[in-house]
């Protein structure tokens, strides 16, 4: 492959959208009510739309007649580069909102910066993504505040969900090898520089939501290197089932 680092860099961004979209897709028909169900499915579709653009680009880089479906559906678990945060199960609505919000704040920062990439395709995808992700953050942030600053029970559940996902946030800002190469070429975003603003912004919203900011100093990581949690295999089994059972099927 001509440009392995660019390929890996694209997957590092795209896989987050694919896997989080798959998690949200599981809620289709199972949302807490009709309106929220549609909202979550809309977000999933936004994420899949972004994923397609990234994977089409990635497939062009591989060449050899590969398509977006090969990239999305036919990789092994170790070849997915998404962070651990996005593969975690839905558990309950508070978890869905906490995971979404903690990702959305980062995602919007990343898209905002990526608009200035030297790579025109990535810059164009990011430009479209910024508007979508802004809405995702508005949705998840509003719900976080509603539930946090709601009843005593909703606050406890929201706090539990934030505590649960907090250890997964630091990985968002880890720099990989392909990150380094792409940053040097002016293509990639230096996510380490986003960290301070991220925690400032997240803390402000948590405060408004009357949720205490966890002070857990232990963070979990590995997804960016392809070392995933026990949930990932089950998620991929469902995601890949059709393509593996009926190779090359389409509709």
């Amino acid at each position: 492959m001509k440009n392995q680092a660019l390929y890996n860099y694209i997957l590092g961004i795209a896989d987050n959208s694919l896997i989080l979209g798959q998690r949200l897709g599981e809620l289709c028909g199972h949302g807490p009510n009709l309106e929220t169900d549609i909202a979550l499915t809309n977000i999933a579709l936004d994420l899949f739309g972004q994923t397609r653009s990234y994977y089409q680009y990635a497939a062009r880089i591989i060449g050899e007649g590969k398509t977006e479906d090969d990239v999305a559906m036919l990789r092994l678990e170790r070849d997915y580069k998404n962070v651990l945060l996005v593969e975690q199960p839905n558990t309950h609505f508070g978890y869905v909102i906490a995971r979404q919000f903690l990702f959305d704040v980062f995602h919007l920062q990343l898209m905002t910066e990526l608009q200035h990439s030297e790579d025109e395709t990535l810059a164009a995808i990011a430009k479209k993504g910024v508007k979508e992700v802004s809405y995702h953050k508005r949705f998840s942030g509003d719900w976080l505040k509603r539930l946090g600053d709601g009843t005593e029970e909703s606050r406890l559940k929201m706090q539990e969900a934030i505590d649960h996902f907090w250890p997964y946030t630091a990985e968002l800002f880890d720099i990989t090898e392909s990150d380094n190469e792409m940053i040097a070429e002016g293509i990639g975003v230096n996510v380490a520089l986003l960290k301070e603003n991220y925690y400032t912004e997240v803390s402000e919203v948590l405060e408004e939501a009357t949720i205490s900011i966890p002070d857990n100093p232990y963070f979990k990581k590995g997804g960016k290197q392809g070392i995933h949690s026990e949930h990932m295999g089950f998620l991929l089994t469902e995601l890949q089932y059709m393509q593996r059972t009926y190779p090359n099927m389409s509709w």
Partner: protein
Amino acid sequence: MKKEWPLWEVFVRSKNGLEHRHFGSLHAADAEMALENARDVYTRRNEGVSIWVVESKYITASNPEDNGELFEPAQDKVYRHPTFYNLPDEVKHM
């Protein structure tokens, strides 16, 4: 849900220059949520440029039983329509 959220009516302006039209209704806890829900439920296929929401309880509706006295008297008064003018062909959209 034990406690249902109140019902809201949704009005969407499809294009600049057109009026807001009633699109349907939905449930939401307050106005802000009603707007976001309306965005997700009614404008996901690019239907709108502006949304109004109003809680359904603030709409006063006419009683169907009164239809006789409210609407029937107008039925035989065709002269209230401006259909007795000869319009030049050049005038469109009348």
